[in-house]
Structure formats: C-alpha cells, structure tokens
C-alpha cells in the first residue's frame, strides 16, 4: 500500500502541472501604429490589469511624444526643421536622440533616424494609404542630395538644427525604447514575469511558471512559425521583415526598410531576428543588419555588440551567429533552408 502510495504521489506531482489553471493576464491595446500585447504571469488579475493599464498609458504618452508627424515633442522638432529653424529638445527626447545617434554611428549610418522625409516620400509613414508605386527616381535623388545624418543635426547643447526638409523618424528605435520603459515600469510595480509585445517586437522577463517563455519567430514567406526560441530571465527578441509593410509594382516587391545609401528598399534580406537584453538596441540592430545585407551583416552586428542574430535572405537561405544557433530550434526537421553559421569578426 505504501509502495502504491509513493508511486501515486510521484505520478500526481508530475501530472499536476497540466491541470493547474493558468495564472496569466493579457491586455491588448493600440499604440505607435501597432497592437501591443502585455502578458503578465503569476500575480492576481486585478494587480496585473492595473500594471498593464499603466503600460498602456505609458505607450500612449510615448506615441504622442515621438510621432514624427503629430503635435508632440518630435512632431514639433520636425516642424521647426521644415521651417529651417533650430529646434529645442526636451531632456527626454534629447536622451533618446543621443542614444539613436550613438547607434547610428556604430552602424555606420545603416540605422539612420534622419530619414523621415524619405519615408514620407515612399508613403511608408504609418497613417498613409498603402503606396501603389515607387516615387520618381529624381525625387529619391533629391532626398539623398539633401540628406543629413542625425549626427550632423544633433548639436552638443539642447538644440537641434539641420538643412530644411530633413525630418526625424524614430521608426526602428522608438518601439524598442518604449518596450524597455514598459518592462522597467512592470518591474517597479513588482511584476517579475511578463512579456511586452509591440507588434511582434518583444521583451520577456522571468518565466511562465515552471517553464521559460516560448517565442515563435515568423516564417518570412509562409504562414506560421519558422523557429522557436526560449527566453527566461530577461531578453528582447526583435525581427525586421520585408513582409511587414510592402507593395508590389510591376512584379517587384517594395518594402519599408529603406537603405540610407540608395534611398530605396534594402535588397537581399527577407528577415532579421536579433536577441539582446536591451530592446532599443535590438530594434535598431534589426534594422541596421537588414540594411547591411545577407553577406555583410556580421561586421555590423559586431560593431553594435550584438551576438545573437538570425538572417533569412530572399532566397530562403538562413544564416546565424553561433550564439543564436545554440538558442534557436527550427519547427521543421530538417530546417527549410541551408543554414550557414557566421562567426562575428
């Protein structure tokens, strides 16, 4: 009887995890032109919901402040730049732009926030109708001719100035910074286990009960998930893909990730996934590595201090760093493309 009891208790202990109801609270809201999902585990729903609502409020405030075309801090900067006048920066925006300038420099300008007017020319700013054709070559050339890098605009003081027509767009960075701030807010509220997911770019902290958080990485050309990665403790997973915003004109796909060197959509890469502790850096790095291209991304990753990267080119070939290879697990066996492990320089 004792023997049977021991076996039953052990078996029950193993199976109990399957029966326990989930202690998970999910909130969803719209901000920064995307859906934001906040998943909180292991605290009572009322407390989780209150913390999630503070995250929503934070995102709305940051959306207003960093909307390039709105009436918040960045919108006012862009209006001043358009008028050829120096723009005053509030301390918070200055700090964000200084970090963006640092990352832009470390990526050799492949991540470039001073491309606002080019983004608008292509019709990829969030609130506009889906573009149907690329802009005229002469208009792209004119934008490139007057282009100034963020390093040229941001002076050492609290003001910013540049040639008329140059505009800042924090797409490729703002979402990352917002996710970092949201996670800090949750941690200050005593939340240890959560995911903040802003339109597929996310940071996870803690665990989901007895297991790590499970994150799927979207296949860039097919419905569904290509690979899985686990996060426990603290980590951001950011993906930039040519499928997020694009149009097809005369059989050619034009997507929203613009190469500052050509003024046109970056070529050769379908998606880049970056894992890193800091979301802001992961966001900027995913963009910079996408622009760097399927051959040259390792050098940019090294300059940015990123060690976990997976790149899928437009032919379906997969390349990744050794550190990413140790973390990622493909859903299909064998994986759907040739895998090449790239050491960082």
């Amino acid at each position, binding site marked *: 009887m004792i*023997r049977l009891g021991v076996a039953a208790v052990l078996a029950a202990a193993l199976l109990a995890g399957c029966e326990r109801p989930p202690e998970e609270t999910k909130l969803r809201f719209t901000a920064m032109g995307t859906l934001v999902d906040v998943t909180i585990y292991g605290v009572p729903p009322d407390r989780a919901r209150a913390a999630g609502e503070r995250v929503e409020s934070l995102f709305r405030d940051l959306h207003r402040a960093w909307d390039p075309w709105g009436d918040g801090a960045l919108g006012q900067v862009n209006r001043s730049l358009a008028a050829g006048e120096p723009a005053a920066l509030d301390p918070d925006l200055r700090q964000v732009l200084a970090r963006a300038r640092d990352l832009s420099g470390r990526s050799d300008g492949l991540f470039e926030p001073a491309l606002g007017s080019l983004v608008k020319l292509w019709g990829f700013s969030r609130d506009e109708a889906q573009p149907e054709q690329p802009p005229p070559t002469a208009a792209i050339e004119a934008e490139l001719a007057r282009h100034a890098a963020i390093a040229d605009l941001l002076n050492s003081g609290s003001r910013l100035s540049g040639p008329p027509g140059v505009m800042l767009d924090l797409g490729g960075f703002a979402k990352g910074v917002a996710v970092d701030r949201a996670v800090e807010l949750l941690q200050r509220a005593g939340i240890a286990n959560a995911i903040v997911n802003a339109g597929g770019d996310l940071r996870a902290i803690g665990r989901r009960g007895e297991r790590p958080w499970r994150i799927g990485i979207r296949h860039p050309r097919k419905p569904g998930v290509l690979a*899985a990665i686990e996060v426990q403790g603290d980590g951001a997973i950011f993906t930039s893909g040519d499928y997020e915003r694009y149009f097809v004109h005369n059989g050619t796909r034009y997507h929203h990730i613009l190469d500052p060197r050509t003024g046109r959509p970056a070529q050769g890469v379908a998606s880049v996934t970056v894992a890193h502790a800091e979301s802001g850096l992961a966001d900027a790095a995913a963009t910079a590595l996408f622009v760097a291209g399927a051959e040259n991304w390792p050098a940019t990753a090294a300059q940015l201090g990123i060690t976990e990267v997976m790149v899928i080119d437009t032919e379906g070939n997969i390349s990744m760093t050794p550190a990413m290879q140790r973390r990622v697990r493909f859903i299909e066996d064998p994986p759907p493309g040739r895998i090449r492990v790239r050491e960082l320089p």
Partner: protein
Amino acid sequence: MTLVRPADVAVVVLAALLVGAAWAALWSGGGEGETVRITAPGAQPIELNLAADRSVSVEGALGPSVLEVRGGRVRFVESPCTGRHCIHAGWLSRAGHVAACLPNGVVAEVIGSGQQFDAISF
C-alpha cells in the same frame, strides 16, 4: 521488502512520458486555427468557427469592417481606413495570427487549441 517495485517505477515513468508528450505537442505541429475572435470598440468580442464559411460586418470606430471566413481561414475584405493594412494582411489561418484595422479598432485573432507560443516575433 523494498519500498518501490519495478511496476511502480513503470507507472512514474509512464506519467513522465505523458508530460513530455504533452510538452512536445505544444512545441511542434498543431497550430491550425479553429475559430476567429473579432473584437471591436464598445462591443463584446464575437467568436466564429473557421469551418463555417460566411461574411460578417463588424461596426468599428469609423464604420463597418467586413471579414470573410472561407476554407478554414479569415481575412478583412473591407474596412473604412486609408492604410488598408488590414486587407493587405491577407488570409489568417494559424492559431495566434492577428490582423487589425487600427483606425477602426477592429482586431481579428485566430484561436486554436494547439497554441504553441506565448508570443510571435515578426
């Protein structure tokens, strides 16, 4: 007399295998959508079976969004927004797939029993 006999060990091992099998099922395969949950501002969410073809009009902040369910998939076919990103998103069929008309506040999310992931990076 021993405390645990081989048969007892077998019971425990079998239980462990069952837990392992459940975990593997969550990780791989599955993921087919079964229903779509459509949310709109100021209204209770509605959930439609993806096995039953139909069109549904949902009132949003700007006007009606029309969604079509056909062959186990769902998509936006009309929406009163300028961006048309919701329509551009095309068909959704796998559990966890989401498309939204943000200006109209209408969100469609595919639900399935084989939800493998806590979040998708894309």
